């Protein structure tokens, strides 16, 4: 009952899965973005300019996690192939660069179009199925995309390919500077956050949320879920493709390893542990995941084992992720 203190009536959590939603989530999201915004000067002050590079990576994964949250947290579709879109975006950069097109905007456009098309086709087939079938078929489509890029020997096959230089913006090498690039990525994250918050509150988002909570009820008032879920899948795919463009520029390297199923699994971990269906949680989850990865890998070579154990324990002993843990600790939920 006390969870009403955390949730507004308009965007309330289902009782099974406590979420930080509504105003609390908005404030949380703004605080996170503000912290990101002051990070570069803070990093310089601390004499650790490399922090900006790490933070860029976090920001980019936050965009990817946000996009997955639309599918997973709002669309109730457990997609296990989301990393494929990161790959589409990244390969859009190298493929266009090889064709002499270095412009970031054109590359982004191609990435969005390619990802959206792949999402449209595979989503339409996947959404014919339900439950574990959906999980497995999205996983398999992700693998299909992975093997497609592995087979592209012109772009390095398995080994991938190094970028000659980062993409240009307005004909100039603007994003060669790490700090500028960081702020561009952050701007994309902020825009994605605002856009998705708008979308989930819209008519469309309401249908999506309603379908997530009670599919049969929505059908009984006249909504056929397929079109709405597919649209969400396409929007999310396109946004994640954009994240892939940024990721390629951040690492200045592209390979099929961007789109392994393990990567898809990591994205799910970010979204769920941060708190699904809140958007802010996806950003927080990406931060938590990558910071933890950074810290653990500094401590031990075998950090995967610790990381895996943390995931297992969190799932077994907390429900609803970190956000659920928080609302139970501080919201007094039994």
């Amino acid at each position, binding site marked *: 009952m006390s969870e009403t203190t955390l949730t507004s009536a308009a965007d309330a959590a289902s009782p099974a899965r406590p979420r930080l939603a509504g105003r609390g989530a908005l404030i949380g999201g703004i605080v996170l973005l503000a912290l990101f915004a002051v990070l570069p000067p803070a990093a310089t002050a601390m004499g650790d300019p490399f922090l900006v590079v790490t933070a860029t990576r976090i920001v980019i994964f936050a965009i990817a996690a946000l996009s997955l949250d639309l599918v997973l947290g709002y669309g109730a579709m457990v997609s296990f192939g989301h990393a494929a879109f990161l790959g589409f975006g990244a390969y859009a950069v190298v493929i266009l660069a090889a064709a002499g097109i270095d412009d970031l905007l054109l590359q982004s456009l191609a990435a969005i179009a390619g990802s959206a098309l792949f999402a449209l086709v595979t989503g339409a087939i996947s959404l014919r199925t339900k439950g574990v079938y959906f999980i497995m078929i999205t996983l398999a489509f992700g693998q299909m995309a992975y093997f497609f890029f592995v087979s592209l020997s012109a772009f390095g096959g398995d080994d991938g390919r190094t970028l000659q230089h980062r993409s240009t913006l307005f004909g100039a090498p603007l994003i060669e500077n790490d700090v500028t690039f960081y702020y561009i990525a952050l701007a994309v994250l902020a825009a994605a956050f605002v856009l998705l918050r708008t979308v989930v509150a819209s008519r469309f988002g309401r249908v999506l949320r309603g379908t997530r909570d*009670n599919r049969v009820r929505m059908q009984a008032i006249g909504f056929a879920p397929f079109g709405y879920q597919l649209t969400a899948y396409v929007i999310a795919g396109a946004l994640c493709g954009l994240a892939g463009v940024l990721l390629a520029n951040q690492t200045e390297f592209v390979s099929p390893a961007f789109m392994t199923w393990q990567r898809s699994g990591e994205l799910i971990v970010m979204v769920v542990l941060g708190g699904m269906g809140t958007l802010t949680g996806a950003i927080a989850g990406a931060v938590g995941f990558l910071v933890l990865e950074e810290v653990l890998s500094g401590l031990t070579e075998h950090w995967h084992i610790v990381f895996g154990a943390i995931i297992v324990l969190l799932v077994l002993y907390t429900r609803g992720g970190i956000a659920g843990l928080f609302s139970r600790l501080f919201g007094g939920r039994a």
Partner: protein
Amino acid sequence: MSALLSIRDLRKSYGALKVTDGISLDVPAGELHAIIGPNGAGKTTFIHQLSGSLKSDSGAVHFDGADITRLSMVARVKRGLARSFQITSILDGFSVLENVATAVQARSGSSFRFLTPAASETALNAEAMEALARVNLADRAHRQAGTLSHGEKRQLEIAIALATGAKMLLLDEPLAGTGHEEGAILIDLMRQLKSTHTIMLIEHDMEAVFALADRVSVLVYGKLIATGDPAAVRADPAVRAAYLGEDA
């Protein structure tokens, strides 16, 4: 005379169990038609078939002059045939108002709108408030639906069905699980709805049925064994033997 809802030889089996065993029935516009029958008679299954959430094995259903036998649930709702659920089915996490506004939204323009907040669409909210007022839930509009009392949730079910703009309501045991007072409110509500909607009412509560219904059908083991006005059905010896006798 042509009925609003016309059912011909409708059938559904689960394996050897004939749950709906050749039902034919006409419900004229404006009628409140009650279906009674013992537990497991197949009443809910019948409603599932009429609403389109369950495919029939054979038979035909016509609604408002059109053959809807092969239409999906969504398509039937759009034609004006709405239902409520025996087991409460609402959007627990939404506000009461948003539950109803969502049903209004389903028939007012495209829902592929992405940029304006749905919660501030005054036209949707106004119509939703009307439906809530009709079921006496207006003062609960801003509560989270999951926190309503059981009786209020039953009222909300009906408000949602109303808000779809339906001509005809299929109500599956709207009194299920309600106490005496809550039941009285709902019975009163259905009496008012009679004047504006054609209703098929599945109900266990005999008192309610005989007070409300224009006609009553008795369903036993998937077959309609009697149809007629309440007094005649009550007097029918086959009905008394098969149903009322063991229930009284």
